[in-house]
């Protein structure tokens, strides 16, 4: 099939993207697109968003020179973009605040969200509380088990966490269920999608709401090093922290962009979430993109130790950046990520989220292979507090 010529609708990244959804929500997507375009051209909206990002979430987040990690690895000068220092502990709040404000602007009273690791759910619940909206978060049962602490946090914040039993009870199923819920209540609810995925305009919109990561990084590195970085590295589940980080650098062809997927127990096993490495083109959750699927087009359940990377698809813009060669996508295993997590803990006194530990693991491989004047920026998308119990269980308790 020649998708390029067969599909000419808007909202595409090359062959990827689009809007494959039930007719019931097409109108809502049109309204969202319109409201979003208006909002980002409205100084009052931008001012309120900037105010909340600054005073409520704590932006700008630091760009921290990881001196001890740099020394330990030998090679590139490593900078950490500290999204873990955001309110609620991850980059997810950037997008949740923006979509929450948009929901209010559109006169919606209820938001729904899906969550894997719980970070996007916590961010959505937080924003709902702050803006006076009601909030339902769809979460797979397996993820609820893995991220009990985050479930409780959402409940404390006044959100209802709806358990999803279908499939393997992870992010894929939570996303499907959230879309179904949206289809059923589209007249009053706003669906806050947590990554650069879903039907148009979500991938574009979430990327625009996350580009603050890359915009700040650019300014900060120019100030600190007086030049752009050689490498920018970020983990990729759906891909929002990576897209936010990459986007302001897309035209700087000398800046190498590396997305890091979860290889789980290895890309040559059937337990991984390495969508770009092992997937093929298809449609899931309203978008055309690379997917983990079998020869009949049934979606294969992904696996990763990290709930936030445990997704069988990837944002369509990443699929496109891969096709065009502008970004490279690598995969690191659970074990490599855990080892990197320990390394960051002991060299820098920072416990990263398991998701972010994947990006660090890539840095561990890459940094020693390049010269000492190489500048490498890695997005530390979130902090590891949420993962501490899980790591404790996995490693059989204290040692």
């Amino acid at each position: 099939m020649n998708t390029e010529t067969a599909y000419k609708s808007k909202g595409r990244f090359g062959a990827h993207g689009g809007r494959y959804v039930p007719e019931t929500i097409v109108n809502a997507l049109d309204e969202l697109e319109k409201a979003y375009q208006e909002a980002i051209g409205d100084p009052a909206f931008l001012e309120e968003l900037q105010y909340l990002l600054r005073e409520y979430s704590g932006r700008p987040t630091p760009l921290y020179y990881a001196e001890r990690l740099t020394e330990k690895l030998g090679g590139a000068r490593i900078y950490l973009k500290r999204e873990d220092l955001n309110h609620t502990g991850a980059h997810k709040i950037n997008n949740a605040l923006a979509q929450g404000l948009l929901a209010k602007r559109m006169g919606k009273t209820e938001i729904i969200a899906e969550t894997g690791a719980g970070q996007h759910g916590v961010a959505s619940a937080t924003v709902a509380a702050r803006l006076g909206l009601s909030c339902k978060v769809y979460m797979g049962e397996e993820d609820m088990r893995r991220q009990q602490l985050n479930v409780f946090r959402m409940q404390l914040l006044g959100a209802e966490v709806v358990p999803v039993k279908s499939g393997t009870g992870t992010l894929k199923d939570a996303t499907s269920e959230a879309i179904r819920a949206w289809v059923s209540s589209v007249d009053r609810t706003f669906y806050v999608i947590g990554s650069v995925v879903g039907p148009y305009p979500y991938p574009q919109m979430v990327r625009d709401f996350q580009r603050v990561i890359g915009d700040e990084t650019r300014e900060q590195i120019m100030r600190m090093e007086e030049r752009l970085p050689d490498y920018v590295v970020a983990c990729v589940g759906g891909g929002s922290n990576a897209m936010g980080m990459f986007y302001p650098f897309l035209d700087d062809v000398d800046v190498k962009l590396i997305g890091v997927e979860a290889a789980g127990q290895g890309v040559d096993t059937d337990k991984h979430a390495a969508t770009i490495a092992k997937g093929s083109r298809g449609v899931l959750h309203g978008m055309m993109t690379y997917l983990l699927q079998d020869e009949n087009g049934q979606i294969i359940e992904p696996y990763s130790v990290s709930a936030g990377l445990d997704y069988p698809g990837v944002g369509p813009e990443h699929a496109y950046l891969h096709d065009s060669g502008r970004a490279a996508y690598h995969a690191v295993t659970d074990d490599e990520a855990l080892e990197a997590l320990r390394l960051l803990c002991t060299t820098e006194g920072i416990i990263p989220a398991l998701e972010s530990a994947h990006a660090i693991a890539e840095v561990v491989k890459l940094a020693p292979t390049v010269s000492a004047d190489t500048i490498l920026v890695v997005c530390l998308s979130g902090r590891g507090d949420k993962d501490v119990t899980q790591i404790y269980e996995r490693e059989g308790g204290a040692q």
Partner: protein
Amino acid sequence: MNLETGSGAARIAAAFNTEKPAFIPFMTAGYPAPEHTVDLALALQEEGAAILELGVPYSDPLADGPTIQNASAQALAHGVTMERALELARDMRTAGVHIPIILFTYINPVLRFGPERLYKAMEAAEVDGILIPDLPFEEAGEINALAKKYGRPLISLVAPTSAQRVKMIAEQAQGFVYCVSSLGVTGVRSELREDITDFLEAVRRYARVPVAVGFGISGPDQVAALAPHCDGVIVGSALLNTIRQAEVLLSQAETKQEGLTVVKKFVKLLQSGV
């Protein structure tokens, strides 16, 4: 298009040539198990089904509620894929099912199978059309071109939220227009929207093909209320619930007929108000 061989579009048009609104049951291929599919189709035809919607199971049926999701999961566990569903359709033809058969599936399995290959296979299995709930108008170009080439319509859905889109979609619809009776996914609902008749009449104004209504319809009173405002009524989840209740009976040779009778009785009841 050839009426004699009953090519899709013509066969679908003929199915609406009745005084009563056409009864259009939905069943999942391979549910409760593949060996029941042909028997159930024959039973539905015997009870006056005008068109059969045959669900091709998919792992992530976004437009479906729990009943059809569960039926799909069970059929998938029996290994029913697109290929197998088409075989089951062909078996139906051999066994004497002559009403139009329309596949209900999702775009990903279609893309994976290959759209043109699928149309060839539909032709071979005498499947008359296809319905893809996650393929809205704007994305349907390629499949629509194939639908015209092979004379086997891609059925369009319109929703109560479609607003200005109703005209655009209905005017270009082939086969029939599928009106989604309520917001939400498939599944039984106790009440219909108050504005449903206005919606149906609006679609009828623009459509050049028959107008059928579905999603949530479960009882004879609902069928009776809708009948004056449409050309066809689609019933899915309520029928699958009945099939599930009959599953034990269906699965044993001695009680199979009894199981089919349970299903037939339900279908008779549904149509009793019209």
